Each structure stands twice: as C-alpha cells, then as structure tokens.
C-alpha cells in the first residue's frame, strides 16, 4: 500500500482476484444452470422409477435401467445432481466450519465422495446395459 500513490494500476486492478476465494461467480452460475436441468430431471426420475419399480424388485429395477431413455436420463441426473449438491455442500461447509483443518478435510471429502459415487453409479448403469 505504501507505493500506491506512485502505482500506475487502477484501484479495481489492484483488488481483482483478491477476494475471499479469488473467484465466486463460476459456482454461483453453475449452481443455477444445474438447477434448471434438475427441475426437469429430478421429478421425471421420481415419478418414472416409482411407477416402474413400485415393489423395488431386482428385475423391475434392471428393466427400468435397461431402457435407453432411462439410462441416459439417470446418467444425466447423477452427473448434474452430484455436481449441484457438491457446490451446495461446499457453501454450507465454508459458512459453518470455522476450524481450518476440519474445513479442509470436509472440503476434500465433499470434492471426492460425489466424484467417486458419480463415476461408480454411471459405470453401474453402463454395466447393466452392456453387461460383461
């Protein structure tokens, strides 16, 4: 700050990228874009699965996942839904967890667990459809 009077940089140029996290609008926009997709995907999934797999039997579940439209829909739901929930939970963690070590561990888990689950679930849908 001592040489700010002699600096050629504008005040905006000096503060840019020095916010709490260096960025922010990316997640803000992603959360809204994914929510628009989920407005369609989530109700479709609940009603479609509830009608098709009402007794929760194995064969009914396999039948439902084997339909190409359902397979594509549920892969989209898992990918977009888990991304949406990871952003949302990140916001909750940075709001409520003050201890830096705990916050860092939770942020790591919140990045890792949805990614692992999404890859596992998408692979499971492909396995049901294309088999071994």
């Amino acid at each position, binding site marked *: 700050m001592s040489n700010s009077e002699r600096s050629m940089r504008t005040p905006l140029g000096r503060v840019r990228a020095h916010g709490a996290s260096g960025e922010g609008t990316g997640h803000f926009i992603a959360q*809204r874009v994914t*929510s*628009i997709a*989920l*407005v369609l995907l*989530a*109700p479709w999934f*609940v*009603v479609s699965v*509830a*009608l098709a797999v*009402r007794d*929760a*039997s*194995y064969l009914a*579940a*396999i039948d439902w*996942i084997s339909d190409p439209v359902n397979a594509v829909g*549920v892969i989209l*739901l*898992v990918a977009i*839904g*888990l991304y949406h*929930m990871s952003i*949302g*939970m990140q916001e*909750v963690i940075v709001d409520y967890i*003050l201890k830096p070590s705990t916050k860092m561990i939770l942020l790591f888990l919140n990045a890792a*667990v*949805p990614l692992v*689950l*999404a890859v*596992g*679930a998408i*692979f*499971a*849908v492909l*396995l*049901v459809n294309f088999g071994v």
Partner: protein
Amino acid sequence: MAGAPSPHDRPIAPHVSIWRWHVTMASSILHRVTGVGLYGAAICLAIWLIAAALGPEPYGFVDAVLSAWYGQLAMYLVVASLAYHLANGIRHLVFDTGAGLTPADADTSAWFAILFALAAPIGLWALLTFGG
C-alpha cells in the same frame, strides 16, 4: 485477514434468539436443511444403481432396507425434501430475475413451497395406489 479479530472475538448480532419466526426465514433454513438431506438421498441413489449392477444378492439387501419401515419413512422424507427444494429452487430462480421480492409475494411463494412439499408425497402415493 491481517489485523482482523479472530472469529471468537467478533461481536455477534443477537439475531436468532430474539427474531420472530416468519415464513421467509423458515423457507431459507428449510432450503439448506433439505439440500443437506438430499445429499444423503443422492448417495442412496448411487448405491441403488451400483447394487443393481452387482446382481440380485447385493440388490436384495438394498431392497430389504427400502421395504422396511425406516426405508419407507426415509423415502417419504426424501420425496418431501425433493419437492420442497424443487419448489423453493424455482422460487429462487424467479427471485434471480428480480421478480417476486416484495415481502407479500415472498411470503406467499414461501407458503406455496411448504404446502407443495406436504402435498407431493401424498400425490405420489395416490398416483401409485389409484392411478397408473
């Protein structure tokens, strides 16, 4: 953060204990609570898909949990949470355009989201029992 007091030294607004509960406050808190709850539901969705790919025996375990009273109760809460988060999420997308932000409009839409959350599981149950 240089020179800023640590979080424990900062003055705290005496807000939670003295504020009258109003519906927009409840709707905001419910959005977070249902979002965190749906995190668990999404994990269960991934486990359901993975169990279906693993075969009848692992799926039988998931089926047993879903068919037990606590599984049925959890599914009721998941459908209610999803319905609430969906309705309130749409409400927030409308807010983002600048519409519906007057206290009267925000109160009305908050009540609508809460009532939708109560009605949606009953509607789904009715669809499964009497329709389709």
